[in-house]
């Protein structure tokens, strides 16, 4: 995504002078975490990372909130499906987008049914993030 598009996105996201969007990247793969972190940063989104679903749940239990959660499916300790179910059971209403390399329809369906608002196949791109972000602005719009 080039600079003018990023500027338009920034204007659209802040058209009501809301605070910056925050996000949580949940993925056990450090290369993926680094790239997703940078992708979000480049779009002006403050973000943190978690290495598995349990860490994602714990960070919410400590009282933190994020507008957007990018949730990987396959992770050790607690996977994305379980983490999404737990977060929704905790009353977390953030936009949760499942980001996975799985392509089977039934796996995607199970993930969606856990409480996702959106689903994208890896690799994540700036355009995919923008389409997810439009969902946030539409929900609160």
């Amino acid at each position, binding site marked *: 995504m080039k600079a003018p598009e990023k500027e338009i996105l920034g204007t659209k996201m802040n058209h009501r002078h809301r605070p910056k969007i925050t996000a949580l990247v949940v993925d056990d*793969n450090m290369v*993926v975490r*680094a790239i997703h972190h940078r992708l979000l940063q*480049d779009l002006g989104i403050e973000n943190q990372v978690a290495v598995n679903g349990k860490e994602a749940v714990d960070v919410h239990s400590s009282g933190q909130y994020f507008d957007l959660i990018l949730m990987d499916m396959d992770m050790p300790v607690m996977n994305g499906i379980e983490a999404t179910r737990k977060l929704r059971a905790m009353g977390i209403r953030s936009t949760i987008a499942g980001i996975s390399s799985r392509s089977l329809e039934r796996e995607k369906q199970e993930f969606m049914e856990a409480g996702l608002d959106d689903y994208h196949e890896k*690799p994540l791109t700036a355009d995919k993030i923008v389409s997810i972000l439009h969902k946030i602005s539409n929900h609160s719009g």
Partner: protein
Amino acid sequence: MNSNQLQHQVLYMRRSLFDQGYLDSEQLIQLEDLQDDANPNFVEEVVSLFYSDSARLIQNIEQTLSNRPVDFSRLDDILHQFKGSCSSIGAKKVKDACSQFREYCNAGNAEGCSRSFQLIKQEYETLRRRLESYFQMVKQAKAA
């Protein structure tokens, strides 16, 4: 080489990486788009992260393949990780070699796994050498 020649060499090396199937052009461009004044070497940093993380995965594969009986489920988990990293940096040939390995895994074919593991290591090292040369050339071209 003068500046123009260096630039041509960079473009040639880049085109070769794409045309010979080593790198996915779209993914590289995505990563390059994330470079700016504050993050001028992001691509090289991510590639470096890929290689240091993958070294661990390769070691795990070696160990798991040498155990008897072979734990194909564990191998598949490791390869899933490895494939995910390959996709992130657009390492096409390495990723394809991982897919081939996973097929042998699913079939419970240890010998097939060993053979495709040799291919993974080969493609992995070739890509490393090609990328090291490419990044070096990019730096030389910038400095010229």
